[in-house]
């Protein structure tokens, strides 16, 4: 049984079509990497899954429930999201960023929420930064807090929207390490990223999206070594060249 099933999804912004007839499924503990040129609809696809953006046509199922039939807040509690620009709450410490959702959404007591937050900060290697504010952290540290914030809600699936694109090159590694650890531990992850090293090592499946349509989808070896479509090969080749 798929954890996530996207079925014939269409989405346009006004007259601008963004996604067309997109369908795919993900099992639990699977890591899916979505790649594609800028403007291909990758981020929109992610945002449709937690309903930050609403689709025009089609269906999306989480755990066999159509996501538009469940409460959107409940859906978002079950589907975590990590943003390109981190989007940490600027007025709260690293710990506060994590406890806010735990307290307001999961109704944990302050002591429970603090303990859980510290636990997740430790998992992303930031136990010593619990009291730091976002502006006092490096980009890589901020993104790790962002991941801890998503993880602490015990989601069934986490969406990563270009989590390393806003980072200086020397800070990308620490974030990818955390993501690789998560993949290893069996977290279900749907990632939009240009990090081909991560895609090769951690992804079970890579989806190549272009112009709002899935061009090709398959195991990393297949897409890197024997792509069915020339477009896929060209694009992945360019990315790999760029990111060595």
């Amino acid at each position, binding site marked *: 049984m798929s954890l996530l099933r996207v079925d014939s999804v269409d989405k346009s912004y006004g007259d601008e079509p963004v996604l067309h007839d997109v369908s795919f499924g993900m099992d639990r503990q699977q890591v899916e990497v979505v790649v594609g040129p800028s403007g291909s609809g990758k981020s929109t696809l992610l945002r449709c899954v937690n309903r930050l953006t609403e689709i025009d046509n089609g269906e999306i199922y989480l755990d066999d429930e159509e996501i538009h039939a469940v409460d959107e807040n409940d859906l*978002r509690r079950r589907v975590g999201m990590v943003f390109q620009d981190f989007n940490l*709450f*600027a*007025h709260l410490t690293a710990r506060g960023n994590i406890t*806010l959702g735990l307290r307001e*959404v999961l109704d944990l007591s302050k002591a429970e929420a603090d303990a859980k937050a510290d636990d997740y900060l430790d998992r992303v290697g930031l136990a010593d930064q619990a009291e730091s*504010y976002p502006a006092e952290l490096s980009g890589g540290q901020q993104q790790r807090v962002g991941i801890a914030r998503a993880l602490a*809600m015990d989601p069934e699936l986490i969406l990563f929207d270009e989590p390393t694109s806003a980072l200086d090159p020397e800070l990308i590694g620490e974030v990818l390490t955390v993501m690789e650890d998560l993949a290893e531990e069996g977290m279900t992850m749907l990632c939009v990223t240009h990090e081909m090293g991560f895609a090769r090592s951690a992804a079970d499946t890579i989806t190549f999206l272009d112009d709002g349509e899935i061009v090709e989808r398959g195991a990393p070896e297949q897409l890197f070594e024997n792509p069915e479509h020339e477009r896929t090969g060209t694009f992945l080749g360019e990315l790999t060249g760029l990111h060595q």
Partner: protein
Amino acid sequence: MEPAVLQATDWGFILANWDTLALGGVVTVLLTATSLTLGFALGFPSGAIEVYGEGWLADIVSTAGVLLRGTPIVVLIVLFFFALPIPRLGTVPVVDMKLNAFVTATLALGLRSAAYQSQVFRGSIQSIGEGQLEAARSVGMTKLQAIQHVVFPQAVRRSLPGFQNEFTIVLKDTSVAFAIGLAELLTRAERLYLQPGRDTVVIEVIITISAIYFVLTFTTNRALDYVHSQYAIPGGNQ
């Protein structure tokens, strides 16, 4: 020929009447407090409605704001005094002021301040990036929770400088209550030098009340500066 000299000053007159001016200062402070409180109570939600609201409520709020900001404060206060059915409420002891004039002045200054404060808050709410709201919604918070716990705490911090400005303006504009005879600082000052034979002390009286207005604005602004620095977000540039 002797050069023209200024009249001899008469600070003794000020000392002899310090209690009259002090009570005027008290009324001024009270009126500032009630007006700013009313202005905040209406202005903060109005700013939020202008950002997040839609339909008739947002229309009413924004139209009321335009009207209030577009009317001179003296016109408002006189209009309210004669047009609103505020009953005669008698006189407040000790500070010796007419309560209906005080209520009228609070309404006029408070509503106008709400119209300005709403723009201060609207600007600061809009300056909080959309990503903050999306991040809050993405952990499952409702829109209201997200606004309350993520947007407002940051917006209020950013609105402090604008609010300080508004505070200074309201404090000094309490002097327009003079137009309806409320016994605040300027009104009492005028009563002092309009007494027969007292036209010689106009300068002393005016300088004294200017100093009182200055001390009030200066100390309160310093206090608000302190609050601002205490609540500043570490590492941030606000």
